[in-house]
């Protein structure tokens, strides 16, 4: 084989280090913020978290005169302030699933696992980066939603509640914590299912399909089981009041954290074992 005259030279690299968890975190941060789908999902999450409480507060305020006493008693200012969390959780969950399934659908996962063949650092880094980013980006919206809805409802004395009232700050900040955990749970589901449509469907089944089905069960069963479902347990983090058949905020929150940990643990085992 004759050697070509115009041989390409590969410049030597100045520095190549070993793979560390911190470096993988940095890489995952680059991956997260360099995609349009991330920006759109997070924007949707922020918008929905703020827009719904403002809309509900405005509607409540304008219809207050025509409401019955019973109907008025049913309104709770914190339910209004955090109404957006129930909606934006879908945007955050979709992004959580996409963070990992987007790599499988495009083939990026092969590049990722070639750079980090031990694989687990990738799962931990994705979880950490997405968790921190979603919490930091969702915290201002829940605070804005609380104070904005309170401002709109300022004419109605019984709908006023102080941020320093016991449990209020915990519920409002809890809204951002809940969204972060929903995202992490969805990420774990995505890593297990490895398919965007399947991941979103699985998440929707666990959060939106199974809970209403519980109502078909005998009431005693429903009361006994429902409170331990991921969505019900997680909801307690941002609920001010707790019924007889729901967990208190801390046990509920910790149970939801447990579900996230379990999902990630299953994902971790599968991630190491499965072929790519």
């Amino acid at each position, binding site marked *: 084989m004759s050697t070509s005259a115009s041989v390409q030279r590969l410049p030597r690299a100045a520095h190549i280090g070993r793979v560390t968890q911190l470096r993988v975190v940095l*890489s995952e941060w680059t991956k997260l913020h360099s995609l349009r789908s991330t920006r759109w999902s997070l924007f949707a999450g922020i918008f929905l978290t703020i827009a719904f409480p403002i809309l509900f507060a405005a509607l409540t305020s304008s219809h207050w005169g025509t409401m019955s006493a019973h109907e008025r008693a049913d309104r709770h200012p914190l339910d209004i302030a955090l109404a957006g969390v129930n909606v934006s959780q879908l945007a955050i969950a979709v992004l959580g699933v996409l963070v990992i399934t987007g790599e499988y659908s495009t083939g990026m996962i092969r590049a990722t696992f070639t750079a980090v063949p031990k694989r687990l650092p990738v799962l931990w880094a994705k979880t950490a980066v997405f968790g921190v980013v979603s919490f930091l980006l969702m915290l201002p919206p829940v605070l804005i939603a609380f104070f904005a809805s309170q401002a709109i409802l300022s004419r109605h004395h019984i709908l006023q509640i102080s941020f320093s009232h016991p449990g209020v700050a915990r519920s409002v900040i809890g809204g951002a914590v809940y969204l972060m955990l929903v995202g992490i749970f969805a990420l774990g589901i995505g890593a297990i299912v490895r398919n965007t449509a399947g991941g979103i469907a699985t998440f929707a089944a666990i959060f939106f399909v199974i809970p209403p089905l519980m109502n078909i069960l005998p009431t005693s069963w429903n009361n006994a089981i429902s409170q331990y479902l991921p969505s019900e347990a997680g909801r307690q983090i941002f609920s001010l009041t707790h019924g007889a058949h729901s967990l208190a905020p801390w046990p509920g929150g910790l149970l939801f954290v447990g579900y996230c940990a379990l999902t990630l643990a299953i994902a971790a085992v599968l991630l190491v074992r499965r072929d790519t």
Partner: protein
Amino acid sequence: MIEARGLTKDYGDKRAVDGLTFSVRPGVVTGFLGPNGSGKSTTMRLILGLDAPTDGNVTVNGKRYRDHEAPLHEVGSLLEARSVHTGRSAYNHLLSLAQTHGISRTRVDELIDLVGLREVAKQRAGKFSLGMGQRLGIAAALLGDPSTVMLDEPVNGLDPEGIHWMRSLLKGLAAEGRTVFVSSHLMSEMSLTADHLIVIGRGRKIADTSTSEFLSAASGNVVRLRSPQADELRRLLVAPDVTVDVIEPGYLEVHGLTAVQIGDVAAANRIALHELTPRQASLEEAFMDLTREEIEFKAAELEPEKAVA
């Protein structure tokens, strides 16, 4: 240096790679040749630990790929299947890979220039043509200044200028003392770049030899001749291990004798020769000969499936 020992991979009840043992040495370009579906890509995934072998093992520079502290510095790889997020720019794709090894942005820029993607570096990789995608893959492979470079069908989708660029790049990398392992289903491409060949079919190793030896061994002794007394010469040449085909009246193809032997027979019998041409089979033909059995096997397997459909 890549060393595979008894490497085997089953997908369900299909055996994709069957007891492969080979080593790929530094300083030369080693071609990894086989028909489509013969197990080349699977072997490469096994080398990178993307898939786990059913049996056997493979090491790179003495260790399993996964056990290296800086894997991108050991092996730079380009897989046949695209491995890029379509929504991310070429620059950010390379940066995200570089960051796992603490490789600088300067190095990322250097590679973008090397593969000629400067002008499109900020564009989403999903918009790239096949050729641009290959160049991006090459940049990713070379990011870590790897001692072993492993490329799966690297000239796929490249234009003639790109193919020339790729050939000189591969030779340059080998000349620098790196291990270069390149797969292809095109024999002709390998004959221009590879010094050594590992040929597989249906997951099994068929040949492991230098390119020139492979060529001469596979071509055997085929000589074409033209003679006004072709019929007479034919009778004289035919023997148990010699076959003579009549291509057209007065034009013969002899298998099993060298041009020298034929010329001597003709001279001894005072037969005039107007042409005597030893034919070297092209690498393509040699490759086809070697893998024919494997391909026929496959065609036979396809029949029942057709019947079902």
